[in-house]
């Protein structure tokens, strides 16, 4: 008899349910890479839980062979906080979208991140409401013409990673649905981080907002429009690796290497900087003025909510190992009636 533990393959993480996303949706790629990341990680399937809100992305748990809950619009971080607080032994993932996390659920996202609950939040950003059939979202660009904005939207979009920085996130990353290796690697890093991991995935909705990330996914343009962050390395991009980001005071600028500009003049990425200033600055780099950054923006160690909550309970129990309810009932002033 073999005593080896069975090794789970990516397919072992898929449930028996038919996947019902539209053909060509970016969500398929994220689902596939998630299964790969989990298989590579080797964490027990039964100790993994996926919690989602409402929206296309939030159907995700139904397609995983783990524990899962498809909850309420915007509230997945709150469910996950309760689950992780009660069951710190579980690996808990939150699957959300730009409308779910940043519109109706903005409050819960903010508080899960600032508490540093040890969950992994993956935000599928397609810059549109898909499940309700095509209204603009909080990440849609100004002037977006949709069913609810026939003359173009007038509200300023949010940058998800800037929000995460503002909440003091301890792990912030961005990746792209079609960049499958980078996507799987990023999910794995998120899983390994202790504390809230926040991952934005540029995800294409081929029905209601096709090509929203074309500049970042198109073979011809992506190398000029995306800069891949690596800790301790300079920010270099371009098809010829001939461009970089340099700091001019507190402002980034795009420079061409050569003509007296060397790699050492460029901004070097420090994901572990205690202050999130640089992560914020990187999150604000937008097309068309800048290449948009992918990779791990920030990764620091900080006290974790669920660890501390459970440590307080453990400390109280340790201090009173023989606590019985009869003592509580009879505490304070009591009197006897014959």
């Amino acid at each position, binding site marked *: 008899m073999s005593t080896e533990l069975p090794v789970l393959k990516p397919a072992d993480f898929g*449930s028996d*349910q038919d996947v019902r996303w539209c053909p060509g949706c970016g969500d398929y790629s994220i689902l596939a890479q998630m299964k790969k990341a989990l298989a590579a990680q080797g964490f*027990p*399937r*039964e*100790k993994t*839980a*996926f*919690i989602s809100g*409402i929206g296309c992305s939030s159907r995700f*748990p*139904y397609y995983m*062979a*783990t*524990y*899962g*809950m*498809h*909850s*309420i619009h915007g*509230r997945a971080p*709150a*469910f*996950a*906080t*309760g*689950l*992780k*607080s*009660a*069951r710190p*032994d*579980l690996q808990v993932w939150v699957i959300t979208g730009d409308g779910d996390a940043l519109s109706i659920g903005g*409050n*819960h996202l*903010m*508080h899960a991140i600032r508490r540093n609950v040890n969950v992994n939040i993956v935000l599928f950003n397609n810059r549109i409401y898909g499940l309700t059939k095509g209204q603009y979202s909080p990440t849609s660009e100004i002037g977006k013409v949709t069913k609810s904005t026939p003359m173009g939207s007038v509200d300023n979009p949010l940058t998800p990673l800037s929000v995460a920085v503002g909440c003091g996130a301890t792990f912030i990353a961005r990746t792209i649905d079609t960049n499958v290796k980078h996507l799987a690697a990023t999910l794995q890093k998120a899983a390994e981080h202790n504390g809230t991991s926040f991952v934005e995935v540029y995800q294409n909705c081929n029905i209601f907002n096709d090509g929203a990330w074309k500049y970042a996914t198109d073979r011809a343009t992506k190398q000029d429009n995306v800069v891949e962050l690596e800790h301790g390395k300079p920010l270099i991009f371009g098809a010829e690796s001939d461009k970089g980001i340099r700091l001019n005071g507190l402002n980034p600028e795009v420079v061409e290497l050569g003509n007296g500009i060397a790699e050492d003049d460029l901004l070097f990425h420090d994901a572990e900087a205690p202050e999130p200033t640089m992560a914020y600055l990187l999150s604000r780099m937008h097309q068309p003025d800048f290449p948009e950054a992918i990779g791990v923006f920030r990764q620091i160690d900080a006290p974790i909510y669920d660890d501390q*909550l*459970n440590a*307080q*309970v453990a*400390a*109280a*129990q340790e*201090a*009173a190992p023989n*606590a*019985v*309810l*009869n003592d*509580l*009932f*009879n505490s*304070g*002033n*009591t*009197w*006897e*009636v*014959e």
Partner: protein
Amino acid sequence: MASTVENISRATIRFAGDSGDGMQLTGTQLTNTSALAGNDVATFPDFPAEIRAPRGTRAGVSGFQVQFASEDIFTPGDQLDTLVVMNPAALVTNISDLRSGGLLIVNEDSFVDKEFRLAKVESNPLDNPDMDQYRVIKIKMTLLTRTAVEELGLSNKFADRCKNFFAMGFVYWLYNRELQPTLDFINTKFGSKPEIAGANEKALKAGYNYGETTEAAVSTYQVEKAKLKSGTYKNVMGNQALAWGCITAAKLSDKDLFLGSYPITPASDILHELSKHKKFGVRTFQAEDEIAAVCATIGAAFGGHMAITTSSGPGIALKGEAMGLGMILELPMLIINIQRGGPSTGLPTKTEQSDLLQCMYGRNGESPLPVIASRSPADCFETAIDAWRVATKFMCPVIILSDGYIANGAEPWRIPDYDALEKIVIQHPGERSEDDPPFLPYKRDDNLSRPWALPGTKGLEHRIGGLEKEHETGNVSYDPDNHEFMCKLRQEKIDKIADFIPELEVDGEQSGDLLVLSWGGTYGACTTAVTQCQAEGLSVSHAHLRFINPFPRNLEALLGNFKKVVIPELNLGQLQKIIKSTYGVDAEGIHKVKGRPFSVSELLAQFKELIG
């Protein structure tokens, strides 16, 4: 000593003053001291929503009423035997509750022009000829307290903060109460600040001695011990009893307790209380809002904890969607609503029973949830345990209704022996191997309950959610027949709880002229009023509902046994609506929405009128 000591069976006393005058503390001390003396007690704290409303104004008046008795009592009393007022605003807002011939004890030092202006009275209300019907005792409490604490060298401002202890001391003399329990309290509470402890002790004794020395009243009063069922007792407030009941229910079911909550009056004290008991495996999560509080609760329930959330009407409104999810997930949890005056922000510190329809029906879709209501502060303990028994046996959220009157009121609680309480047995399904048939998360047992499968259990991996589920598999299903089947099944499950709960008991005859049907915090006033009717030979019976959803099996038959049914409620007829529509019974209603409980006398008058 006063010339005589008069033996009386009960006394109702109210302290009223500025919200900064320490009236709640004063009343609580008299309550505890009376309970320790063996009296039955019932209290009614009444305070403004503002933490410090403008000093001296009517809006800033805070009151604490206590009734103590040598017999069983169920209410804090109607009319006051003694009213203590610390300023003119307290006098004008409370005097109408003092019975004719009652004692009015006044801090004379505050009856000056400046205070009259703040209280918006033209002249000294004590000069009003109507005052002749009361026995007025004017005491220069401010001056006497300052003198009493003089040797400690405190500022006047500081000394004046002790005058509630002077008033307390005087009342202790009047009702022959022991000083020792309050001296012990002072020592415990202020022991680390000797000058404060010393000043309060001196003020308390000064008040007591003032009564004794001046023989301020013709007689003092003695209330003998009440004949309660034998046992050990302690005084509990409703929210405290609920918190302890939840801890106990968790232990009885071998669970840790998780509370997700957002601060809201009058429920916050449950959060405070539970936060203190981590050693019993209690985790409290102060969420970012009401919605997060209930969602985290559902998350913890999924994880296998005894999960509860606490709030009041406005918070329950926000939790509505998640309560519906909890219902369709079929996970056990408690949702506790400490009702307050509504609608909207309403009267946050006042009591009302106007969230019944909200809790019964305030969710989208067919979303039935069991509703159980506690009837008194001590009853909250068992209510919590009963609710958890139902939640776990039938795999559903259970709503507990309490109210501000129960939450902040206090009464003696007969302390149970934990080891003698019936355990709550929960069986979680165990691991499965690949050779076993697939796990069916929505396969039901005889109670129509589904299994509570915990994450971490190998082979039971499953997904739950708000979308309609296929019978047994729990997979998402849009099938029209399945949806109707599942809606009916979930309703049937809640209806089945009626087989599990006790039948409704009747206080009085099983048939007759009038049945008083009550629920929640009106129990005490209804019981007392019905007892008086029965003593007068009237054909009046009383039944008090603990479960409102589902109703006890025998309710329908019982309603038919009486010529008239009356439902007194602190709302505009919410249970009345449900009873009428459920049973087609023409029930009468007695309705009050003044932020205050029923008085026995007003119920008594209306019951008699109904009998004609």
